Protein backbone atom coordinates (compact mmCIF):
# COMPACT_ATOMS: atom_id res chain seq x y z
CA UNK A 1 0.00 0.00 0.00
CA UNK A 2 1.31 3.45 -0.95
CA UNK A 3 0.92 6.65 0.93
CA UNK A 4 0.29 9.80 -1.05
CA UNK A 5 -0.41 13.30 0.14
CA UNK A 6 -3.07 14.28 -2.39
CA UNK A 7 -4.82 11.95 -4.82
CA UNK A 8 -6.95 13.47 -7.58
CA UNK A 9 -9.33 11.05 -9.24
CA UNK A 10 -10.06 12.22 -12.78
CA UNK A 11 -7.87 14.37 -15.03
CA UNK A 12 -10.45 16.59 -16.65
CA UNK A 13 -10.49 20.39 -16.26
CA UNK A 14 -11.54 20.28 -12.60
CA UNK A 15 -9.13 17.53 -11.56
CA UNK A 16 -6.21 19.01 -13.48
CA UNK A 17 -6.72 22.48 -12.08
CA UNK A 18 -7.05 21.09 -8.53
CA UNK A 19 -3.84 19.12 -9.03
CA UNK A 20 -1.95 22.12 -10.46
CA UNK A 21 -3.18 24.47 -7.74
CA UNK A 22 -2.08 22.10 -4.99
CA UNK A 23 1.21 21.09 -6.59
CA UNK A 24 2.35 24.62 -7.31
CA UNK A 25 2.18 25.40 -3.61
CA UNK A 26 4.24 22.42 -2.64
CA UNK A 27 1.82 19.53 -2.18
CA UNK A 28 2.74 16.11 -3.59
CA UNK A 29 -0.07 15.23 -5.96
CA UNK A 30 -0.98 12.03 -7.76
CA UNK A 31 -3.54 12.38 -10.54
CA UNK A 32 -5.28 9.29 -11.87
CA UNK A 33 -7.17 9.12 -15.16
CA UNK A 34 -8.73 6.15 -16.96
CA UNK A 35 -7.94 7.46 -20.42
CA UNK A 36 -4.79 7.30 -22.51
CA UNK A 37 -4.47 11.04 -22.12
CA UNK A 38 -5.61 13.40 -19.37
CA UNK A 39 -7.75 16.43 -20.27
CA UNK A 40 -11.23 14.98 -19.88
CA UNK A 41 -13.86 16.67 -21.99
CA UNK A 42 -11.52 19.54 -22.88
CA UNK A 43 -9.97 17.71 -25.83
CA UNK A 44 -13.39 17.49 -27.44
CA UNK A 45 -14.16 21.18 -27.00
CA UNK A 46 -12.75 22.57 -30.22
CA UNK A 47 -14.84 25.74 -29.95
CA UNK A 48 -13.91 29.03 -28.29
CA UNK A 49 -15.08 29.30 -24.70
CA UNK A 50 -17.34 32.00 -23.31
CA UNK A 51 -16.76 33.65 -19.94
CA UNK A 52 -14.41 36.35 -18.78
CA UNK A 53 -11.59 37.33 -21.12
CA UNK A 54 -9.45 37.74 -18.02
CA UNK A 55 -9.81 34.01 -17.58
CA UNK A 56 -9.35 32.18 -20.86
CA UNK A 57 -12.58 33.23 -22.61
CA UNK A 58 -12.13 33.17 -26.37
CA UNK A 59 -9.63 30.31 -26.05
CA UNK A 60 -10.51 26.90 -27.47
CA UNK A 61 -11.01 24.06 -25.01
CA UNK A 62 -8.27 22.00 -26.64
CA UNK A 63 -5.74 24.78 -26.07
CA UNK A 64 -6.77 25.13 -22.43
CA UNK A 65 -6.16 21.39 -22.06
CA UNK A 66 -2.67 21.59 -23.53
CA UNK A 67 -1.84 24.48 -21.24
CA UNK A 68 -3.14 22.67 -18.14
CA UNK A 69 -1.19 19.52 -18.95
CA UNK A 70 1.95 21.61 -19.33
CA UNK A 71 1.32 23.29 -15.98
CA UNK A 72 0.83 19.87 -14.39
CA UNK A 73 4.15 18.73 -15.82
CA UNK A 74 5.98 21.89 -14.74
CA UNK A 75 4.67 21.63 -11.18
CA UNK A 76 5.55 17.98 -10.84
CA UNK A 77 2.12 16.37 -10.69
CA UNK A 78 2.52 12.59 -10.86
CA UNK A 79 0.06 11.20 -13.41
CA UNK A 80 -1.09 7.60 -13.81
CA UNK A 81 -2.93 7.23 -17.12
CA UNK A 82 -4.97 4.27 -18.31
CA UNK A 83 -5.72 3.73 -14.63
CA UNK A 84 -9.11 3.50 -13.00
CA UNK A 85 -10.06 4.26 -9.41
CA UNK A 86 -12.24 1.24 -8.68
CA UNK A 87 -12.97 1.86 -5.02
CA UNK A 88 -12.84 4.44 -2.29
CA UNK A 89 -12.78 3.11 1.24
CA UNK A 90 -12.85 4.59 4.71
CA UNK A 91 -10.77 6.33 5.58
CA UNK A 92 -9.40 7.92 2.39
CA UNK A 93 -8.09 4.70 0.84
CA UNK A 94 -8.28 4.58 -2.96
CA UNK A 95 -8.08 1.34 -4.91
CA UNK A 96 -6.67 1.90 -8.36
CA UNK A 97 -6.43 -0.58 -11.20
CA UNK A 98 -3.19 0.69 -12.62
CA UNK A 99 -1.98 -0.15 -16.12
CA UNK A 100 1.71 0.28 -16.78
CA UNK A 101 3.44 1.16 -20.06
CA UNK A 102 3.96 -2.51 -20.87
CA UNK A 103 0.24 -3.24 -20.40
CA UNK A 104 0.84 -4.90 -17.03
CA UNK A 105 -2.14 -4.33 -14.72
CA UNK A 106 -1.89 -4.10 -10.98
CA UNK A 107 -4.28 -3.23 -8.21
CA UNK A 108 -2.76 -0.51 -6.03
CA UNK A 109 -4.21 0.65 -2.73
CA UNK A 110 -3.28 4.16 -1.73
CA UNK A 111 -3.70 5.79 1.64
CA UNK A 112 -4.20 9.48 0.92
CA UNK A 113 -4.24 12.51 3.21
CA UNK A 114 -6.59 14.36 0.88
CA UNK A 115 -8.67 13.12 -2.03
CA UNK A 116 -10.27 15.09 -4.84
CA UNK A 117 -13.08 13.32 -6.68
CA UNK A 118 -13.25 14.83 -10.17
CA UNK A 119 -14.97 12.02 -12.00
CA UNK A 120 -17.32 14.13 -14.06
CA UNK A 121 -20.66 12.98 -15.39
CA UNK A 122 -22.20 10.54 -17.85
CA UNK A 123 -24.81 11.05 -20.56
CA UNK A 124 -28.50 10.39 -20.03
CA UNK A 125 -30.38 8.01 -22.28
CA UNK A 126 -33.65 8.71 -23.99
CA UNK A 127 -35.48 5.49 -24.65
CA UNK A 128 -37.67 4.98 -27.68
CA UNK A 129 -38.56 2.05 -29.88
CA UNK A 130 -35.49 1.12 -31.88
CA UNK A 131 -33.05 2.91 -29.56
CA UNK A 132 -30.72 -0.09 -29.48
CA UNK A 133 -30.08 0.04 -33.24
CA UNK A 134 -26.49 0.84 -34.22
CA UNK A 135 -26.38 4.53 -35.00
CA UNK A 136 -28.04 5.68 -31.78
CA UNK A 137 -25.52 7.24 -29.42
CA UNK A 138 -24.93 10.03 -26.96
CA UNK A 139 -24.04 13.42 -28.40
CA UNK A 140 -20.89 13.30 -26.29
CA UNK A 141 -19.92 10.02 -27.89
CA UNK A 142 -20.41 11.50 -31.34
CA UNK A 143 -18.31 14.49 -30.28
CA UNK A 144 -15.46 12.23 -29.16
CA UNK A 145 -15.60 10.38 -32.46
CA UNK A 146 -15.39 13.49 -34.60
CA UNK A 147 -13.10 15.72 -32.56
CA UNK A 148 -10.76 13.21 -30.96
CA UNK A 149 -10.87 10.15 -33.20
CA UNK A 150 -11.58 12.07 -36.44
CA UNK A 151 -14.25 9.60 -37.54
CA UNK A 152 -17.78 10.47 -38.67
CA UNK A 153 -20.42 8.46 -36.76
CA UNK A 154 -22.73 8.83 -39.75
CA UNK A 155 -23.66 11.21 -42.51
CA UNK A 156 -27.27 12.19 -41.80
CA UNK A 157 -27.81 13.10 -38.16
CA UNK A 158 -30.85 13.69 -36.01
CA UNK A 159 -29.92 15.53 -32.81
CA UNK A 160 -32.20 15.08 -29.82
CA UNK A 161 -31.92 18.01 -27.42
CA UNK A 162 -31.32 21.71 -27.96
CA UNK A 163 -29.29 22.56 -24.88
CA UNK A 164 -25.76 23.83 -25.40
CA UNK A 165 -24.39 20.32 -25.90
CA UNK A 166 -26.95 19.53 -28.60
CA UNK A 167 -26.40 22.83 -30.39
CA UNK A 168 -22.59 22.81 -30.18
CA UNK A 169 -22.21 19.16 -31.20
CA UNK A 170 -24.59 19.75 -34.12
CA UNK A 171 -22.33 22.58 -35.25
CA UNK A 172 -19.24 20.40 -34.88
CA UNK A 173 -20.91 17.58 -36.83
CA UNK A 174 -21.47 20.06 -39.67
CA UNK A 175 -17.83 21.09 -39.45
CA UNK A 176 -16.83 17.42 -39.64
CA UNK A 177 -18.76 17.00 -42.86
CA UNK A 178 -22.01 15.42 -41.69
CA UNK A 179 -25.45 16.74 -42.52
CA UNK A 180 -27.58 17.55 -39.51
CA UNK A 181 -31.11 16.91 -40.71
CA UNK A 182 -32.79 18.39 -37.66
CA UNK A 183 -32.49 19.20 -33.98
CA UNK A 184 -35.57 18.29 -31.94
CA UNK A 185 -36.47 19.64 -28.53
CA UNK A 186 -39.34 18.42 -26.38
CA UNK A 187 -39.72 21.74 -24.56
CA UNK A 188 -41.49 24.65 -26.28
CA UNK A 189 -38.29 26.68 -26.46
CA UNK A 190 -34.66 26.13 -27.36
CA UNK A 191 -32.58 25.25 -24.32
CA UNK A 192 -29.11 26.57 -25.17
CA UNK A 193 -27.68 30.00 -25.97
CA UNK A 194 -29.29 31.96 -28.79
CA UNK A 195 -25.93 32.46 -30.50
CA UNK A 196 -25.33 28.70 -30.65
CA UNK A 197 -28.77 28.17 -32.16
CA UNK A 198 -28.22 31.01 -34.62
CA UNK A 199 -24.98 29.42 -35.89
CA UNK A 200 -26.70 26.21 -36.92
CA UNK A 201 -29.82 27.94 -38.24
CA UNK A 202 -27.54 29.98 -40.55
CA UNK A 203 -26.24 26.63 -41.78
CA UNK A 204 -29.77 25.61 -42.64
CA UNK A 205 -30.37 23.18 -39.76
CA UNK A 206 -34.02 23.26 -38.64
CA UNK A 207 -34.80 23.22 -34.91
CA UNK A 208 -38.19 21.71 -34.06
CA UNK A 209 -39.33 22.70 -30.60
CA UNK A 210 -42.17 20.76 -28.92
CA UNK A 211 -41.07 17.65 -30.73
CA UNK A 212 -39.98 14.23 -29.59
CA UNK A 213 -38.79 11.02 -31.19
CA UNK A 214 -41.23 8.12 -31.45
CA UNK A 215 -39.15 5.49 -33.11
CA UNK A 216 -35.90 4.66 -34.86
CA UNK A 217 -36.36 2.30 -37.80
CA UNK A 218 -33.95 0.17 -39.71
CA UNK A 219 -32.93 -3.40 -40.37
CA UNK A 220 -29.39 -3.60 -39.11
CA UNK A 221 -28.83 0.07 -38.26
CA UNK A 222 -30.71 3.34 -38.15
CA UNK A 223 -32.28 4.22 -41.48
CA UNK A 224 -35.17 6.46 -40.43
CA UNK A 225 -36.44 8.34 -37.41
CA UNK A 226 -40.10 9.07 -36.71
CA UNK A 227 -40.60 12.32 -34.84
CA UNK A 228 -43.80 14.05 -33.78
CA UNK A 229 -45.10 17.12 -32.01
CA UNK A 230 -45.91 17.04 -28.30
CA UNK A 231 -48.58 18.94 -26.40
CA UNK A 232 -48.12 20.98 -23.24
CA UNK A 233 -48.23 17.78 -21.20
CA UNK A 234 -45.32 16.32 -23.21
CA UNK A 235 -47.66 13.82 -24.89
CA UNK A 236 -47.35 12.97 -28.60
CA UNK A 237 -49.99 14.57 -30.78
CA UNK A 238 -51.25 11.97 -33.21
CA UNK A 239 -51.26 12.96 -36.82
CA UNK A 240 -48.11 15.08 -36.51
CA UNK A 241 -45.63 12.29 -37.25
CA UNK A 242 -42.77 13.08 -39.62
CA UNK A 243 -40.31 10.57 -41.03
CA UNK A 244 -36.71 11.73 -41.33
CA UNK A 245 -34.14 9.83 -43.34
CA UNK A 246 -31.18 9.66 -40.98
CA UNK A 247 -28.44 7.15 -40.24
CA UNK A 248 -27.46 8.49 -36.83
CA UNK A 249 -29.43 9.67 -33.83
CA UNK A 250 -27.42 11.60 -31.25
CA UNK A 251 -28.90 12.19 -27.82
CA UNK A 252 -28.12 15.36 -25.88
CA UNK A 253 -30.56 15.01 -23.01
CA UNK A 254 -28.41 16.03 -20.10
CA UNK A 255 -25.76 14.47 -17.92
CA UNK A 256 -25.67 12.97 -14.45
CA UNK A 257 -22.80 13.11 -11.98
CA UNK A 258 -20.69 9.95 -11.61
CA UNK A 259 -21.06 9.73 -7.86
CA UNK A 260 -20.23 6.10 -7.14
CA UNK A 261 -16.88 6.74 -5.46
CA UNK A 262 -18.30 9.52 -3.31
CA UNK A 263 -21.16 7.28 -2.24
CA UNK A 264 -18.74 4.45 -1.41
CA UNK A 265 -17.09 6.76 1.08
CA UNK A 266 -20.48 7.71 2.57
CA UNK A 267 -20.42 11.27 1.23
CA UNK A 268 -23.92 12.59 1.73
CA UNK A 269 -25.81 13.28 -1.48
CA UNK A 270 -28.92 15.22 -2.41
CA UNK A 271 -31.20 14.76 -5.41
CA UNK A 272 -31.01 18.00 -7.39
CA UNK A 273 -32.51 17.76 -10.89
CA UNK A 274 -31.09 21.19 -11.80
CA UNK A 275 -27.59 19.78 -11.47
CA UNK A 276 -28.17 16.38 -13.03
CA UNK A 277 -29.55 14.13 -10.32
CA UNK A 278 -27.79 12.79 -7.22
CA UNK A 279 -25.13 15.31 -6.26
CA UNK A 280 -22.72 14.91 -3.34
CA UNK A 281 -22.97 17.81 -0.89
CA UNK A 282 -19.97 20.10 -0.44
CA UNK A 283 -19.08 23.22 1.52
CA UNK A 284 -17.58 26.45 0.24
CA UNK A 285 -14.15 24.80 0.15
CA UNK A 286 -15.55 22.02 -2.07
CA UNK A 287 -15.11 19.57 0.83
CA UNK A 288 -17.75 16.84 1.12
CA UNK A 289 -19.47 15.61 4.27
CA UNK A 290 -16.58 13.14 4.52
CA UNK A 291 -13.58 15.08 5.89
CA UNK A 292 -10.63 15.17 3.54
CA UNK A 293 -12.71 14.22 0.48
CA UNK A 294 -13.24 17.08 -1.99
CA UNK A 295 -15.56 17.16 -4.99
CA UNK A 296 -15.10 19.32 -8.07
CA UNK A 297 -16.45 19.76 -11.58
CA UNK A 298 -19.46 17.97 -13.01
CA UNK A 299 -19.52 15.36 -10.23
CA UNK A 300 -20.39 18.22 -7.87
CA UNK A 301 -23.21 19.31 -10.17
CA UNK A 302 -23.31 19.38 -13.98
CA UNK A 303 -22.33 22.82 -15.19
CA UNK A 304 -19.58 23.67 -17.68
CA UNK A 305 -15.83 23.74 -18.19
CA UNK A 306 -15.28 27.22 -16.77
CA UNK A 307 -16.94 26.40 -13.45
CA UNK A 308 -15.07 23.09 -13.37
CA UNK A 309 -11.75 24.92 -13.71
CA UNK A 310 -12.65 27.30 -10.89
CA UNK A 311 -13.96 24.61 -8.54
CA UNK A 312 -10.75 22.68 -9.10
CA UNK A 313 -8.73 25.75 -8.14
CA UNK A 314 -10.89 26.21 -5.08
CA UNK A 315 -10.35 22.66 -3.85
CA UNK A 316 -6.63 22.81 -4.64
CA UNK A 317 -6.32 26.04 -2.68
CA UNK A 318 -8.35 24.70 0.27
CA UNK A 319 -6.25 21.55 0.40
CA UNK A 320 -2.96 23.45 0.51
CA UNK A 321 -4.42 25.54 3.31
CA UNK A 322 -5.30 22.50 5.44
CA UNK A 323 -1.93 20.94 4.70
CA UNK A 324 -0.29 24.20 5.84
CA UNK A 325 1.43 25.05 2.57
CA UNK A 326 -0.17 28.50 2.62
CA UNK A 327 -1.47 30.72 5.38
CA UNK A 328 -5.15 31.07 6.15
CA UNK A 329 -5.03 34.76 5.13
CA UNK A 330 -3.56 33.96 1.73
CA UNK A 331 -6.05 31.12 1.24
CA UNK A 332 -9.01 33.32 2.15
CA UNK A 333 -7.90 35.95 -0.35
CA UNK A 334 -7.49 33.40 -3.16
CA UNK A 335 -10.76 31.64 -2.37
CA UNK A 336 -12.65 34.94 -2.33
CA UNK A 337 -11.40 35.75 -5.84
CA UNK A 338 -12.40 32.32 -7.10
CA UNK A 339 -15.88 32.61 -5.60
CA UNK A 340 -16.30 35.98 -7.30
CA UNK A 341 -15.52 34.39 -10.63
CA UNK A 342 -17.81 31.43 -9.94
CA UNK A 343 -20.67 33.76 -9.09
CA UNK A 344 -20.03 35.72 -12.27
CA UNK A 345 -20.19 32.54 -14.36
CA UNK A 346 -23.48 31.57 -12.73
CA UNK A 347 -25.20 34.91 -13.38
CA UNK A 348 -27.91 35.63 -15.90
CA UNK A 349 -30.98 33.61 -16.92
CA UNK A 350 -28.93 30.60 -18.04
CA UNK A 351 -26.98 30.37 -14.81
CA UNK A 352 -29.42 31.41 -12.10
CA UNK A 353 -30.96 27.95 -11.73
CA UNK A 354 -27.49 26.54 -11.08
CA UNK A 355 -26.60 29.43 -8.81
CA UNK A 356 -29.60 28.68 -6.63
CA UNK A 357 -29.00 24.93 -6.69
CA UNK A 358 -25.36 25.40 -5.72
CA UNK A 359 -26.21 27.68 -2.81
CA UNK A 360 -28.77 25.10 -1.67
CA UNK A 361 -25.97 22.53 -1.63
CA UNK A 362 -23.91 24.77 0.64
CA UNK A 363 -26.92 25.24 2.94
CA UNK A 364 -27.71 21.52 3.11
CA UNK A 365 -24.07 20.73 3.73
CA UNK A 366 -23.88 23.24 6.57
CA UNK A 367 -27.07 21.80 8.06
CA UNK A 368 -25.57 18.34 8.10
CA UNK A 369 -22.47 19.67 9.90
CA UNK A 370 -19.95 19.52 7.04
Amino acid at each position, binding site marked *: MYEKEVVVIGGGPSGLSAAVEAAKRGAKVLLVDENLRAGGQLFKQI*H*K*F*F*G*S*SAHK*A*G*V*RGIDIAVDLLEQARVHGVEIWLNSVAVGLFKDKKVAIKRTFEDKLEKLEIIQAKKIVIATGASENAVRFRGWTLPGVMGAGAAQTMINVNRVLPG*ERILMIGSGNVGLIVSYQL*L*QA*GAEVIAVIEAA*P*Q*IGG*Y*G*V*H*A*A*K*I*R*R*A*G*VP*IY*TSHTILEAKGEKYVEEAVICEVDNKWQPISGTEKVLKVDTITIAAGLKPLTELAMMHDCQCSFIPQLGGWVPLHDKNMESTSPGIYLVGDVAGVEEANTALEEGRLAGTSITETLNYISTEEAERLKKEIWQRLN*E*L*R*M*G*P*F*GEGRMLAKSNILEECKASNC
Partner: protein
Amino acid sequence: MALRKKGFLTKEELLASKCYPSEKRMSEGPVAVIECNEEIPCNPCEVACKFQAISIGNPITNAPILDENLCTGCGLCIARCPGLAIFVIDKTYSEKEGLISFPYEYLPLPLTGSIVESVNREGKVVSSGKVIKVLNSKSLDRTPVVTIAVPKDKLDEVRGIKRLERNDSK
Protein backbone atom coordinates in the same frame (compact mmCIF):
# COMPACT_ATOMS: atom_id res chain seq x y z
CA MET B 1 -38.85 36.12 -28.88
CA ALA B 2 -38.09 34.33 -32.11
CA LEU B 3 -34.63 33.44 -30.83
CA ARG B 4 -35.97 31.07 -28.14
CA LYS B 5 -38.36 29.30 -30.46
CA LYS B 6 -36.77 29.48 -33.85
CA GLY B 7 -33.10 30.03 -33.12
CA PHE B 8 -32.63 33.33 -34.87
CA LEU B 9 -33.32 36.98 -34.19
CA THR B 10 -35.72 38.93 -36.35
CA LYS B 11 -34.71 42.37 -37.59
CA GLU B 12 -37.18 43.99 -35.16
CA GLU B 13 -35.60 42.21 -32.20
CA LEU B 14 -32.15 43.26 -33.37
CA LEU B 15 -33.18 46.89 -33.72
CA ALA B 16 -34.51 46.80 -30.20
CA SER B 17 -31.23 45.47 -28.82
CA LYS B 18 -29.04 48.60 -29.12
CA CYS B 19 -26.54 46.75 -31.28
CA TYR B 20 -27.90 47.53 -34.71
CA PRO B 21 -26.15 50.53 -36.24
CA SER B 22 -28.28 53.37 -37.60
CA GLU B 23 -28.81 53.76 -41.34
CA LYS B 24 -26.91 57.03 -41.12
CA ARG B 25 -23.83 55.32 -39.68
CA MET B 26 -24.10 52.50 -42.21
CA SER B 27 -24.10 55.03 -45.03
CA GLU B 28 -20.76 56.37 -43.77
CA GLY B 29 -18.69 53.23 -44.12
CA PRO B 30 -18.12 49.74 -42.67
CA VAL B 31 -19.50 49.12 -39.20
CA ALA B 32 -19.92 46.13 -36.87
CA VAL B 33 -23.25 44.45 -36.21
CA ILE B 34 -23.37 42.43 -32.99
CA GLU B 35 -26.21 39.92 -32.98
CA CYS B 36 -25.97 38.97 -29.33
CA ASN B 37 -28.65 40.12 -26.94
CA GLU B 38 -28.86 37.48 -24.23
CA GLU B 39 -27.37 37.68 -20.76
CA ILE B 40 -24.50 35.24 -20.99
CA PRO B 41 -21.29 35.61 -18.98
CA CYS B 42 -19.00 36.55 -21.88
CA ASN B 43 -16.87 39.54 -22.82
CA PRO B 44 -14.06 38.84 -25.32
CA CYS B 45 -15.61 41.34 -27.75
CA GLU B 46 -15.14 44.20 -25.31
CA VAL B 47 -11.46 43.38 -24.99
CA ALA B 48 -11.01 42.78 -28.73
CA CYS B 49 -11.95 46.28 -29.88
CA LYS B 50 -8.94 48.61 -30.16
CA PHE B 51 -11.25 51.61 -30.35
CA GLN B 52 -13.25 50.64 -27.26
CA ALA B 53 -16.42 50.75 -29.28
CA ILE B 54 -17.90 47.69 -27.58
CA SER B 55 -18.92 47.85 -23.94
CA ILE B 56 -20.08 45.16 -21.60
CA GLY B 57 -18.72 46.26 -18.23
CA ASN B 58 -19.83 44.64 -15.02
CA PRO B 59 -21.36 42.11 -14.64
CA ILE B 60 -20.10 40.37 -17.74
CA THR B 61 -23.57 39.02 -18.40
CA ASN B 62 -24.52 42.42 -19.79
CA ALA B 63 -25.33 42.26 -23.50
CA PRO B 64 -22.73 44.12 -25.58
CA ILE B 65 -23.47 47.68 -26.64
CA LEU B 66 -21.83 49.11 -29.75
CA ASP B 67 -20.88 52.78 -30.02
CA GLU B 68 -21.32 53.15 -33.76
CA ASN B 69 -19.34 56.39 -33.81
CA LEU B 70 -16.25 54.81 -32.27
CA CYS B 71 -16.53 51.74 -34.48
CA THR B 72 -14.43 51.89 -37.65
CA GLY B 73 -15.62 48.57 -39.05
CA CYS B 74 -12.10 47.12 -38.85
CA GLY B 75 -13.48 43.64 -38.15
CA LEU B 76 -11.05 42.59 -35.39
CA CYS B 77 -13.98 41.56 -33.22
CA ILE B 78 -15.45 39.12 -35.76
CA ALA B 79 -13.08 36.26 -35.04
CA ARG B 80 -12.88 36.95 -31.32
CA CYS B 81 -16.55 36.39 -30.54
CA PRO B 82 -16.96 32.79 -29.26
CA GLY B 83 -20.59 32.88 -30.34
CA LEU B 84 -19.67 33.86 -33.94
CA ALA B 85 -22.27 36.58 -33.57
CA ILE B 86 -20.43 39.63 -34.94
CA PHE B 87 -20.50 40.79 -38.57
CA VAL B 88 -19.22 43.86 -40.39
CA ILE B 89 -21.40 45.50 -43.01
CA ASP B 90 -20.26 48.03 -45.57
CA LYS B 91 -23.09 49.73 -47.42
CA THR B 92 -20.71 52.08 -49.20
CA TYR B 93 -18.89 49.47 -51.32
CA SER B 94 -20.53 50.48 -54.58
CA GLU B 95 -23.79 51.89 -55.87
CA LYS B 96 -25.59 48.56 -56.11
CA GLU B 97 -23.58 46.30 -53.84
CA GLY B 98 -22.52 46.14 -50.24
CA LEU B 99 -20.06 43.96 -48.33
CA ILE B 100 -20.61 41.66 -45.41
CA SER B 101 -17.79 40.05 -43.44
CA PHE B 102 -18.63 37.04 -41.32
CA PRO B 103 -16.87 34.27 -39.37
CA TYR B 104 -16.69 31.01 -41.33
CA GLU B 105 -15.35 27.90 -39.62
CA TYR B 106 -16.00 25.35 -42.33
CA LEU B 107 -13.90 23.62 -44.96
CA PRO B 108 -13.34 24.08 -47.76
CA LEU B 109 -12.90 27.83 -47.50
CA PRO B 110 -14.24 29.73 -50.49
CA LEU B 111 -11.71 31.13 -52.94
CA THR B 112 -11.32 34.86 -53.41
CA GLY B 113 -13.09 35.90 -56.58
CA SER B 114 -15.43 32.91 -56.63
CA ILE B 115 -19.22 33.20 -56.84
CA VAL B 116 -21.13 31.83 -53.87
CA GLU B 117 -24.72 31.65 -52.63
CA SER B 118 -25.45 34.01 -49.75
CA VAL B 119 -27.79 32.84 -46.99
CA ASN B 120 -29.93 34.53 -44.37
CA ARG B 121 -30.30 33.74 -40.66
CA GLU B 122 -32.41 30.70 -41.51
CA GLY B 123 -29.85 29.36 -43.91
CA LYS B 124 -32.05 30.13 -46.93
CA VAL B 125 -30.31 31.29 -50.09
CA VAL B 126 -30.96 34.98 -50.65
CA SER B 127 -28.73 35.97 -53.56
CA SER B 128 -25.49 35.12 -55.24
CA GLY B 129 -22.39 36.85 -53.99
CA LYS B 130 -18.77 37.34 -54.91
CA VAL B 131 -16.01 36.48 -52.47
CA ILE B 132 -13.90 39.60 -52.02
CA LYS B 133 -11.59 38.50 -49.24
CA VAL B 134 -10.81 35.46 -47.10
CA LEU B 135 -8.72 36.04 -43.98
CA ASN B 136 -7.23 33.08 -42.12
CA SER B 137 -4.20 34.37 -40.27
CA LYS B 138 -2.85 32.80 -37.09
CA SER B 139 -4.17 35.67 -34.99
CA LEU B 140 -7.73 34.66 -35.89
CA ASP B 141 -7.14 31.35 -34.08
CA ARG B 142 -8.80 29.20 -36.76
CA THR B 143 -11.87 31.40 -37.25
CA PRO B 144 -11.50 32.51 -40.88
CA VAL B 145 -13.30 35.72 -41.83
CA VAL B 146 -14.94 35.81 -45.25
CA THR B 147 -16.09 38.99 -47.01
CA ILE B 148 -18.63 38.81 -49.82
CA ALA B 149 -20.30 41.39 -52.02
CA VAL B 150 -24.07 41.09 -52.34
CA PRO B 151 -26.90 43.34 -53.54
CA LYS B 152 -27.06 46.24 -51.10
CA ASP B 153 -30.70 45.74 -50.22
CA LYS B 154 -29.92 42.24 -48.95
CA LEU B 155 -27.30 43.35 -46.43
CA ASP B 156 -29.59 43.31 -43.42
CA GLU B 157 -30.55 39.73 -44.25
CA VAL B 158 -27.39 38.01 -45.44
CA ARG B 159 -25.31 36.47 -42.67
CA GLY B 160 -23.25 33.80 -44.41
CA ILE B 161 -22.86 31.55 -47.39
CA LYS B 162 -24.16 28.14 -48.30
CA ARG B 163 -21.46 25.67 -47.31
CA LEU B 164 -19.36 24.36 -50.15
CA GLU B 165 -19.13 20.77 -51.35
CA ARG B 166 -16.45 18.77 -49.59
CA ASN B 167 -14.06 16.50 -51.40
CA ASP B 168 -13.56 14.03 -48.56
CA SER B 169 -13.34 10.40 -49.48
CA LYS B 170 -16.13 8.63 -47.64
